[in-house]
């Protein structure tokens, strides 16, 4: 069977390619190097047994052990209001609501007033969210409805306020709008997944009537894959960079053989139009904050010439933040791209039409995400859509400007290479660091930093937006500030934050996170001066800090040592430090950076 053949050569994250029994069989694989166990609570008004089993297997394949608690069939309101049950005592990391269109249909059939029905249903869901948030304080993943196979008014159905179809449609629409403005709720787009596979097969009347299956379980591998994507991004696993091959990936043909005027690109020649569409897709991704890199076996000048001179190129040289065209092997080039961008391998996707290159990268850099691309380039985009690689739960101004900021960084490197004294080079950049207390405007960005940063992250606490909100509401306990960096080439926005707590006369630094984009710019020292100042203004005599080891934060394992802290305890996982305020202030040296200190303004 072709499907079965695909599996061994594809990566563990491609769980949507497994069929139901293959996925379920993975429940029994030994869970090696699985870290902390996640606890997930599922509420559903349908059978959630297969769903839970599949989600568990899927997460296991992706390296996460999960304990899943099913709240019982069609029991949501009761379980949420009940004060003394198993759920109340659990502290889940995620709460999933999987309510199905079939139950919705049943309630709809009992109403005489469809317009009001939608409003009532919406306020019911709103209450549910509020209750769940209050009770569990965990992110909510809410499945929208699979829009039903309802043609009771033919083509007029969608336009007809009384139709079941429009009712469900309006609810889905409102839920998406709410979720983008509600902290801690994400929508799982069930309707999209159903459409992708075809609702005629997705919805199975027999299995609903006999076993209360909301969808044919054969599609569960695909559905739980996108649920696992939403879970993973909350834990810092998200794609930040797409590494693109050129020949037969961004254009058709071989540049070295066919020449710049012979490659297939543009609507004038055969399959050239499909590459225009592929490029347009990546251009859009770049606009939304994805970094694009090139890794191609070509001569650099020739490859760059296509970007600057070919009339049908949608992607321009400036869209690419890291460009490697040479005849070295691709693994080496990807290592260089990673070093240049300072991101983790597991946040990189590598796209290449050549099975040889894909296999090599998978073998040597197993963390890099390498989708099996289909033979025909016309199918690339469909394949990427099925893989759901670009999961996110927000879109901010930082995202829009990300590529520009990386390109400015490359210019800085050029200046740096041409200037002999690094310090005087830094001075020439006219850096200004703005230190400001955490406020409601900076929360979304701080949340994003907490989510995305893995390397310069001392304790790797993944704050939820509502946690940051409640920290903000306790200014007498928590002292938090953000650091924003500007220089003459660009405005980085907020690139670091501190969450600290005053305990007796000690300032306890709970979190210290910084974007790796600004490494070696004295931002650490600048941030530390903000910490000492905070300590001073709240009458502290000591500063306490700790380093909690993860697979990815070795970069900062000696940060506190460098800053003059004294090691007070150490084991494999944690190093604890402290320093007296006096000593910390004495040790401070002048910095090549202007500090705009606004910490006293609150």
């Amino acid at each position, binding site marked *: 069977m072709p499907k079965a053949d695909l599996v061994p050569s594809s990566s563990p994250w491609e769980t949507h390619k497994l069929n139901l*029994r293959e996925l379920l069989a993975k429940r029994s694989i030994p869970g090696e190097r699985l870290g902390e166990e996640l606890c997930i609570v599922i509420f559903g008004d349908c059978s959630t*047994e297969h769903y839970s089993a599949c989600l568990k297997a899927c997460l296991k394949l992706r390296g996460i052990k999960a304990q899943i608690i099913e709240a019982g069939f069609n029991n949501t309101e009761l379980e949420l209001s009940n004060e003394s049950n198993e759920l109340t005592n659990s502290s889940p990391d995620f709460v999933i609501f999987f309510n199905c269109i079939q139950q919705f249909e049943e309630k709809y059939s009992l109403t005489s007033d469809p317009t009001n029905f939608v409003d009532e249903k919406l306020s019911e869901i709103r209450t549910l969210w509020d209750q769940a948030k209050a009770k569990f304080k965990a992110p909510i993943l809410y499945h929208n409805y699979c829009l039903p196979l309802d043609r009771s008014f033919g083509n007029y159905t969608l336009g007809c306020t009384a139709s079941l179809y429009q009712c469900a449609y309006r609810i889905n629409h409102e839920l998406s709008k709410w979720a983008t403005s509600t902290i801690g709720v994400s929508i799982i787009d069930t309707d999209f997944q159903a459409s992708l596979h075809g609702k005629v097969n997705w919805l199975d009347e*027999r299995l609903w009537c006999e076993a209360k299956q909301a969808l044919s379980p054969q599609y569960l591998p695909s559905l739980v894959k996108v649920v696992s994507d939403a879970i993973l991004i909350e834990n810092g696993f998200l794609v930040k960079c797409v590494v693109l091959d050129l020949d037969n990936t961004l254009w058709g043909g071989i540049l070295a053989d066919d020449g710049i005027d012979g490659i297939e690109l543009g609507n004038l020649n055969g399959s050239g139009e499909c590459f225009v569409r592929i490029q347009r897709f990546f251009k859009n991704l770049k606009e939304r904050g994805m970094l694009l890199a090139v890794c191609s076996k070509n001569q650099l000048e020739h490859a760059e010439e296509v970007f600057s001179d070919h009339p049908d190129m949608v992607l321009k040289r400036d869209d690419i933040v890291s460009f490697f065209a040479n005849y070295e092997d691709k693994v080496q080039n990807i290592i260089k791209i990673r070093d240049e961008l300072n991101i983790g391998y597991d946040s990189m996707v590598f796209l290449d039409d050549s099975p040889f290159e894909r296999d090599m990268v998978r073998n040597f850099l197993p963390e890099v995400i390498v989708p099996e691309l289909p033979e025909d380039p016309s199918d690339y985009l469909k394949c990427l859509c099925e893989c759901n690689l670009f999961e996110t739960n927000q879109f901010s101004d930082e995202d829009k400007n990300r590529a520009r900021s990386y390109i400015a960084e490359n210019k800085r490197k050029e200046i740096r290479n041409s200037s002999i004294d690094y310090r005087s080079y830094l001075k020439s950049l006219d850096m200004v660091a703005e230190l400001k207390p955490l406020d409601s405007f900076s929360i979304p960005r701080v949340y994003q930093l907490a989510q995305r940063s893995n390397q310069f992250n001392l304790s790797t606490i993944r704050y939820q937006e509502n946690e940051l909100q409640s920290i903000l509401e306790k200014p007498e306990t928590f002292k938090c500030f953000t650091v924003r960096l500007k220089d003459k080439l660009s405005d980085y926005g907020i690139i670091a934050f501190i969450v600290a707590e005053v305990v007796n006369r000690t300032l306890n630094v709970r979190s210290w996170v910084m974007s790796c984009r600004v490494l070696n710019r004295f931002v650490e020292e600048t941030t530390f001066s903000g910490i000492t100042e905070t300590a001073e203004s709240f009458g502290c005599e000591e500063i306490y800090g700790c380093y909690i080891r993860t697979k990815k934060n070795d970069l900062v394992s000696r940060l506190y040592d460098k800053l003059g802290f004294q090691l007070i305890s150490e084991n494999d996982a944690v190093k604890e430090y402290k320093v007296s305020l006096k000593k910390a202030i004495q040790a401070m040296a002048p910095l090549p950076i202007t500090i705009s200190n606004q910490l006293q303004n609150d």
Partner: protein
Amino acid sequence: MTKREEYKQKAEEIFQEVFDQPELKIFDEMVAQDVPDWDSLNHITLVVSLEEEFNLKFTTKEVMSWKNVGEMLDTLTERVN
């Protein structure tokens, strides 16, 4: 090999995967009690997997009527083609 034997062989592989027992042998008189893990969850997985593998959909009536594996195989043989 008759069609029925051929399908039985294929079905056996699916049984083995679904119940996670690589040595499992199926026989006509076999019923749910003969297999330790044959619960409602695995039953649905089994039916859906057979449907996927043989590219057909059983009717509710057919599924309800099976008294043992033999009858299941009879339906399969009748319906494939």
